[in-house]
């Protein structure tokens, strides 16, 4: 199958500022991809390149088989976009705005009721957007991005300003879409919430693509230690450290919990010993390196 998005050696300069430097990647149908980076790392520029709102200074960008900046509009019918801090004309109602966007996409206006229901705006649909809360505007933003069952969804910082309950709902909707075969690109700097939900991570830093792969792949490449937390009865921590061969990384908390930083091979050895420790151990947690830690690792590598 051909790639939905194909970016080859794209560079984008604004004057002397290089917002995107020589980035290449391809996105396959059905993938959920996290685009991760600091503010100003080039995430939004990358999304604008995919939308054709800016043209690459060098290299090429192809989206849904078209050059997005080439003036063609067919590909855009298959595309949904949620801008960072989405805004609408506050004088119109949610329903009017969705109807307008549905018509622009040549989609039946009748379909917007289902979208309003889906994002939980059915009751507020006939109120002016000026009266909406930030969360409701964000829901409306998501609803317009979903018009016409897009094959490619570009969501720029979609959960900024949403409360935790809404975030869960939001990721549920995203999950449904990717189950249906849509490619979803999520840009964010809130990494913990992306961790469980993305198959692939692209880390951008100062315009460069510094990492590209699944979280497991990135963990392997980064060789970051996992944490093993072992709980014992109060006062038994020293005995446990002795039993474990007292690795240098062991840290004791409150006299009854010990934390070890271990590489994958050390981890197995440590767990084997723990299994032999019998009644001493009350609980064991193995915490793989989080996306936050991976991100920090790749950024450190980037900036020596």
């Amino acid at each position, binding site marked *: 199958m051909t790639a939905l998005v194909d970016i080859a050696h794209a560079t984008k300069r604004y004057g002397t500022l290089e917002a995107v430097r020589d980035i290449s990647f391809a996105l396959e149908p059905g993938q959920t991809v996290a685009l991760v980076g600091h503010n100003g790392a080039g995430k939004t520029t990358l999304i*604008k390149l995919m*939308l054709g*709102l*800016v*043209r690459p200074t060098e290299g090429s960008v192809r989206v849904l088989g078209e050059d997005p900046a080439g*003036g063609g*509009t*067919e590909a*855009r*019918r298959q*595309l949904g*976009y949620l*801008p960072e*801090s*989405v*805004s*609408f*004309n506050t*004088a*119109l109602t949610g329903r*009017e705005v969705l109807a*307008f*966007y549905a*018509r*622009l*996409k*040549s989609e039946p206006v009748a379909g917007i009721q289902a979208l309003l229901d889906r994002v939980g705006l059915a009751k507020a649909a006939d109120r002016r957007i000026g009266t909406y809360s930030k969360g409701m505007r964000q829901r409306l933003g998501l609803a*317009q991005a979903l018009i016409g069952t897009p094959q490619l969804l570009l969501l720029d910082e979609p959960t900024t300003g949403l409360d935790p309950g809404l975030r869960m709902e939001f990721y549920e909707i995203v999950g449904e879409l990717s189950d249906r075969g849509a490619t979803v690109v999520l840009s964010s700097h809130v990494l913990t919430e992306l961790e469980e939900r993305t198959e692939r991570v692209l880390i951008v830093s100062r315009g460069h693509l510094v990492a590209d792969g699944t979280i497991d792949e990135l963990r392997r490449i980064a060789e970051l230690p996992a944490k093993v937390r072992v709980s014992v009865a109060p006062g038994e921590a020293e005995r446990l450290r002795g039993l474990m061969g007292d690795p240098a990384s062991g840290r004791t908390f409150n006299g009854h919990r010990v934390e070890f930083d271990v590489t994958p091979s050390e981890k197995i050895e440590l767990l084997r010993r723990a299994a032999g420790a019998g009644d001493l151990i009350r609980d064991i947690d193995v915490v793989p390196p989080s996306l936050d830690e991976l991100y920090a690792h790749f950024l450190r590598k980037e900036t020596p």
Partner: protein
Amino acid sequence: MRNVLLIAAKEIQESLRNRWVLAMTALLAALALSLTFLGSAPTGNVGARALDVVIVSLSSLTIFLVPLVALLISHDAVVGETERGTMLLLLSYPVSRGQVLFGKFTGHLAILAFATVLGYGTAAVTLAATGAAIDARSWMAFATMIGTSILLGAVFIAIGYLVSVLVRERATAAGIAIGVWLLLVVVFDMALLGVLVIDQGRLISPAALSGLLLLNPADVYRLLNLAGATSASAFSGMSGLAGTVSLAPALLLSALAAWTLVPLALAAMIFSRREL
């Protein structure tokens, strides 16, 4: 074409909703009515052509007001939406930038035309209702006045768009729009008058004067309405100028059309190249 109409319809819907249309129509109607009834006081009832007097006073008003209103709705069209973030979303849809601009133009012009026809029409209809005798020629001249007022509005909407695509901030656009208004509506005529006084007809021939007047859409409008074939020219004090400047109405109309199309085309060109 469908997209152009969709965007025009949305523009009209928004202007109706935030009461722009209502405010504009009320303003034009109020001014037109007061000019009609206060303005006719000096001529008394002996003036056989009451509507012609109204044409003179209304078109003098139009020269100041319609460009201002047109610039007010248009200077914000692109830069305002870009600043509010709504343009980014709109352009991610299957619609070209040219369609966005022409759609907005269609919508804005429709709003302005509606306000002008209704506002000025009210004055004429009220005048007729009070029993003033109005002949067909005067009605024609009045219709011409409304038509050319809308055309003048189109010129300044187009100029407003050009300003709007050139700048990065709304405040800059507003400043430039006011500058354009002052230059074309006030300063140009004063400067031209000054030059004519100093020149005393030595260098500037009548033909050159005609050319100079075509450089300002407000003057083209003035020539069309105040120096036209009707008796309005006698009241307006433009007959002297009209005697010197001989420009056919067709030429004047095409000048206004050019003043609309050139800025609009430039705006569309710049907008489609611009990166957001």
